[in-house]
């Protein structure tokens, strides 16, 4: 049928994670469902049964505005906070918000600890160098400039911003459904920065030159159905945080432990030591777990954020991966952070990956392809932006672009990127996505990292040495 042949391929980016269930239901309700778009799927590349030419991929929702803006996708559904974050940083990005969808409603707040009593009026005049932690560095910086803070520092985070105030940051810019949720986290709103909800976005060039009217004719129904009261997806309420705050003390050693994927591994490891923790279980994770060692101040944050938080003196020690330590050291070569002990668990290797059909089996082969004018500029997608940058720089790849991702990077090849720097344990995920390893950069395991500045303080040094010896014994047990 000639008319069907004329239909251009339409590329749609759909969110993984907490927006998945509701988005999937809504698409199904308007006849645009994808059989594989569910949380159990291992297939990230999908074809529509009902609209010919409509393809979709599942991405981390934070990556969707960037991927739509650079033209890898024509349309995307994501949460508008990530769109605003990108547009604040890149006001001329080629992305257009087609419509708001009435779900995933929340707000981005500037918040402080409910004990610190910071108010809007106390912010601007003060000479304090305000420390602001956030997953939204562009929104946070714009807000700080608008509020005319005289001096501020933004600490971009991978997550867990609520863990930082008041000891490790005065302010956090974070997402919450409402002020009540902030209060459950022992935070207090200082200012609402913007609202956030699900939205449909499109690449501006696609809208200007392509015909997407068939897909777009479904949007009115999508907007209407999204506005209907829907059964809210099951959401585990966040653990009510105990109302504790650590006091400043020279006597204490600050230790950061991982949340997220690494938490289970860390729990297993700590069980082999004599350290006993309260509030570091899968079901009850407190930001400040208590331990049987009274000179330990423990906080639970993202492993990716740990090296910088040790470098800036917020923590003396942390348990994180060597991959994240190296990513930090490549960004900040003179950082005081160093690996104190290899803990042996959480083994992965960090590899350079291309699609199976690429006619090259090594980075040299890729360089040859680049020299022939293929793959230039080389598009690199990775979570490890500093490792990737250094890898390509050291190999004299003349033209490359590193596009940061927030996970699920395998899905980008071959359409949206030419190469990945990824971690892999067995290589199975890579094989399932028809990818091949062309280089192994290094192997990474969990390690205890510490700051040389903390080691230089004799009182701390003594306690840190005690901990190292506890961990060394545990690491030796298999």
């Amino acid at each position, binding site marked *: 049928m000639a008319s069907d042949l004329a239909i251009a391929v339409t590329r749609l980016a759909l969110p993984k994670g907490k927006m998945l269930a509701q988005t999937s239901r809504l698409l199904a309700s308007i006849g645009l469902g994808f059989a594989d778009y569910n949380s159990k799927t291992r297939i990230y590349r999908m074809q529509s049964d009902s609209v010919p030419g409509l393809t979709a991929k599942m991405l981390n929702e934070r990556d969707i505005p960037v991927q739509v803006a650079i033209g890898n996708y024509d349309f995307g559904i994501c949460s508008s906070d990530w769109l605003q974050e990108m547009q604040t940083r890149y006001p001329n990005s080629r992305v257009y918000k087609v419509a708001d969808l009435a779900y995933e409603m929340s707000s981005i707040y500037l918040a402080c600890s409910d004990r610190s009593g910071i108010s809007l009026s106390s912010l601007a005049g003060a000479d304090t*160098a305000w420390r602001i932690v956030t997953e939204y560095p562009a929104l946070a910086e714009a807000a700080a*400039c608008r509020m005319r803070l*005289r001096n501020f520092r*933004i600490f971009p985070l991978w997550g867990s911003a609520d863990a930082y105030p008041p000891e490790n940051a005065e302010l956090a810019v974070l997402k919450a459904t409402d002020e009540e949720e902030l209060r459950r986290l022992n935070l207090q709103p200082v200012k609402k920065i913007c609202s956030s909800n699900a939205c449909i976005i499109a690449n501006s060039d696609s809208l200007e030159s392509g015909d997407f009217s068939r897909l777009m004719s479904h949007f009115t129904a999508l907007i209407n159905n999204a506005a209907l009261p829907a059964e809210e997806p099951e959401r585990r309420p966040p653990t009510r945080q105990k109302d504790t705050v650590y006091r400043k003390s020279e006597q204490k050693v600050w230790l950061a432990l991982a949340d997220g994927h690494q938490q289970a591994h860390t729990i297993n490891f700590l069980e082999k030591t004599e350290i006993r923790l309260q509030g570091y279980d899968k079901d009850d994770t407190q930001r400040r777990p208590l331990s049987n060692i009274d000179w330990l101040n423990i906080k639970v944050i993202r492993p990716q954020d740990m090296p910088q938080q040790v470098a*800036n003196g917020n923590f003396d020690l942390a348990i994180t991966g060597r991959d994240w330590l190296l990513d930090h050291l490549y960004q900040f070569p003179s950082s005081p952070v160093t690996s104190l002990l290899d803990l042996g668990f959480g083994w992965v290797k960090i590899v350079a990956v291309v699609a199976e059909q690429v006619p090259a089996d090594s980075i040299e082969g890729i360089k040859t392809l680049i020299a022939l004018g293929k793959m230039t500029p080389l598009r690199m997608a990775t979570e490890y932006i500093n490792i990737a940058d250094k890898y390509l720089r050291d190999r004299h790849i003349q033209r490359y672009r590193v596009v940061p991702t927030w996970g699920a990077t395998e899905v980008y090849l071959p359409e949206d990127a030419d190469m990945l720097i990824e971690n892999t344990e067995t290589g199975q995920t890579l094989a399932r996505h028809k990818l091949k390893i062309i280089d192994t950069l290094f192997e990474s395991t969990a390690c205890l990292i510490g700051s040389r500045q903390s080691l230089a303080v004799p009182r701390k040094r003594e306690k840190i040495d005690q901990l190292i010896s506890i961990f060394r014994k545990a690491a030796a047990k298999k």
Partner: protein
Amino acid sequence: MEIQRCKGARDLLPDDMERFRQVEDAFRNTCISWGYREIKTPTLEYIHLFTATGTLTPSMLGRVYSFLDWDGWGGERIVLRPDGTIPAARLYCENMSGQDIARLYYVTNVFAFEETGASDREKWQCGVELIGDPGPVSDAEVLALAIEASTALGLPKFEIKLSHAGILKALIAELKLDAEARALLLDEILEGNWQALSNARGRSKGIDSILSWLMELKGKSSAFLANLKAMPGISRNLAQEIDRFTAITELIDNLGYKYEIDFTSIRGFEYYTGLCFKIVSGGARICSGGRYDNLIGLVGGIEKPACGFAFYFDQVVALIKPWTRQKAWKTVIVRSPGKASIKSAFSVAATLRRAGLIAELDFSGSQMNARWTVNIQFRPKAYIVRDAVRNVDKAVAEVKDIINFIGGSGNGI
């Protein structure tokens, strides 16, 4: 050919640089003769120098080039200098604050992102700062210096427009907005959107007619300000600011400079507190300046009044006639026929240079870009000089004969 130059960046070619130096030299000579001394601040500064109220507006901050340094784990961002005055204020606080009066000038590049890449993201400015005197004589001094420099730069025709930030701020204060709305309105106005001020009217009807006065009328002398002060509804605060402005315009009247008072001419910088002026030529703003009494306190904690201005290089260069000095220099090409005479060629060229000529060595025997050519012969100390204009060749024995033939000393050195 594929352009590899960064978007929004620019190459300055030899002709561009000759004009650049012309502007720089004229500006420097004027400043030096007024007792100003040159400074250079670093290209890199911390961003917090520019974030306080009364420095850069949020929209300007949104276009700075900033990054984390290699040791930036503490989160302190570095910027490529977005402005010349604020770093000069920092330099004064850190190095010269013991000095009651400081007269400083600089020639510097400033960086700001520009969306299309069609305009330059790196711009050059030459500016002066007069630190330590509350005015109004120092206001008149910097204005007179700017006018003299404009003349020295060879700008064909220019106009002076005056405004006063104190009056604008006193007026906004009367709108009784909260701090954030007030800052926002000021930013809008500094971005050139005077409509924002009209929109904010109505809240206080008494100042309605004053607003339209400021937006619609242009004054030619101090009398204009006397009239304004006599308007009904002028508050005491506003009257005080008008008096401050009048003290300056009366001085300028006495010095005999022509100007126009145009309140809408105020643009760009939040740090101005008193007089603001700009010089317009060929439809372009080529210079702007004014008084910023709070800036040094904000940057370094020491209260010091100050005023200054900056010329916008690129606008100036576009308006002036190309410089001719270098072209007036006599250029001689010194050509050696072979290896054996190279030493002799260097020595002849050196002698010619000492005589004030430009001597250019020609190794290929094919350079034709000068009127005079000296061919060194194999016989020792024998030269053939060619004058391409007169189409004459002459054989001479000594270098001094070459100089005589060319016509004595060149204009250089």
